[in-house]
């Protein structure tokens, strides 16, 4: 059991470069031998730092600790995916934490897994996303709307065409057709209502 291994103070004094080399070696030892002692070194260095990052991001101790735990669990279980040639341990662990945070926030906002971190930053590529197929509504096309438009009564067509296609004002249309402005307004409203109704029916 590794419970009780003391936090090694030397960790906080070493230079970043040396630290990266040292941590890389530990991660390789974890990947190859499931070395708990090496993992404890990595854990003792990163867990407190992750916690302070997580606290800033999540603003809540419980969520912050959940983020630390999920991140370090992934480091333990997927250390074979770490590649020192691609980047430092800090970078790898940061990307894992960032991805978990992204997914946690999506979840907290009650979003479905519409966008998941694995698509954006494939760090832990073994993970697969759920493919939840959403049925898509029928689309309306410009041609369809053209047909619907033709189904409008002639008087409404004239008004709609003048306003939306020719870009005339309602007053201009009233003057041209020699009808009251109120009539133009009501015809426009009725026509749009009718088009909307037909569009909804056609869905």
């Amino acid at each position, binding site marked *: *059991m*590794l*419970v009780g*291994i003391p936090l090694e103070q030397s960790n*906080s004094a070493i230079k*970043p470069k040396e*630290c*990266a080399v040292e941590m890389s070696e530990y991660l390789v030892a974890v*990947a190859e031998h*499931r070395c*708990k002692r090496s*993992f*404890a070194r990595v*854990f*003792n260095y990163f*867990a*407190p*730092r*992750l*916690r*302070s990052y997580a606290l800033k991001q999540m603003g809540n101790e419980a969520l912050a*600790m959940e983020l*630390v735990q999920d991140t370090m*669990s992934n480091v*333990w*279980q997927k250390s*074979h*995916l770490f590649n020192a040639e691609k*980047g430092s341990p*800090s*970078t790898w*662990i*940061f*990307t894992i934490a*960032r991805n978990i945070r992204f997914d946690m926030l999506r979840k907290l906002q009650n*979003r479905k897994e*519409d*966008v998941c971190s694995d*698509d*954006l*930053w*494939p760090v832990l*590529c*073994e993970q*697969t*996303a759920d*493919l939840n197929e959403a049925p*898509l509504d029928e*689309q*309306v*096309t*410009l041609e369809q709307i053209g047909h619907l*438009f033709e189904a409008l009564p002639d008087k409404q067509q004239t008004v*709609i*065409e003048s306003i*939306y296609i020719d870009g005339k004002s309602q007053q201009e249309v009233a003057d041209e057709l020699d009808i009251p402005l109120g009539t133009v307004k009501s015809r426009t409203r009725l026509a*749009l209502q009718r*088009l*909307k109704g037909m*569009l909804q029916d056609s869905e």
Partner: protein
Amino acid sequence: MIRFHPHTQQLESFVEGSLSPAVSILVSAHCDMCSHCQRIVEIETERLASSLFEDNRVSEPLFSPDFDNMLAHITQMPSAVHPDHPAQSRHHKPRSHNKERSASTIELDGRAFTLPRTLRRYADKTGNWSSLVGKLWQAPVELGNQGVANFIYMGPGGSVPEHTHRGTEYTLVLDGEFSDGLNNYDTGDFIFMDDQHTHTPRADKKEGCLVFSIVDQPLHFTSGLARLLNPFSHLFFR
């Protein structure tokens, strides 16, 4: 050649994970196609990780007793590598088997377009192609609460009616070229438009042009027959 890239600020927010998910998809897909931005993202990731985890001047909180339990708990978890096949770990190729279930291409009119990695998952979530006007085709992609994105294909000579934007429109050119009266765009270009821009996208080359586009508000058509669409544009391009 790619001439239009996301802003540095957008790339930084993308790395932080603070950019909106919908825009993140486009930035990520752009980076799949653009080695320049890919490199910036790598550098920025290293810089951020280093500032977060390698700065020893930052005073760390006291070691929590919870950490002892957490460490013990974690090291009792099995490895993700199946113990019966330890060799798998050495020969594991990132992004292999499982991911490949998602289609890497999208098809239209007998042509198959290869998608950037980020968009592959959405190939499965893409609805049917529908014709909007003449040579313009659209297939919607459901993004849940993020709204709807669209693959839009402009056939040779195809054009989106002149419009402006009430919100923002992000477009990534996936295959081909198009122009919009403001600029000419090539494969890989990342285009941002808002209410300051009125444009008429049009593809003139015989290959046509496939783009991926996200708008947060319906477009506002500014001329011709298309104005008739405005009361309903939320049903079309959104």
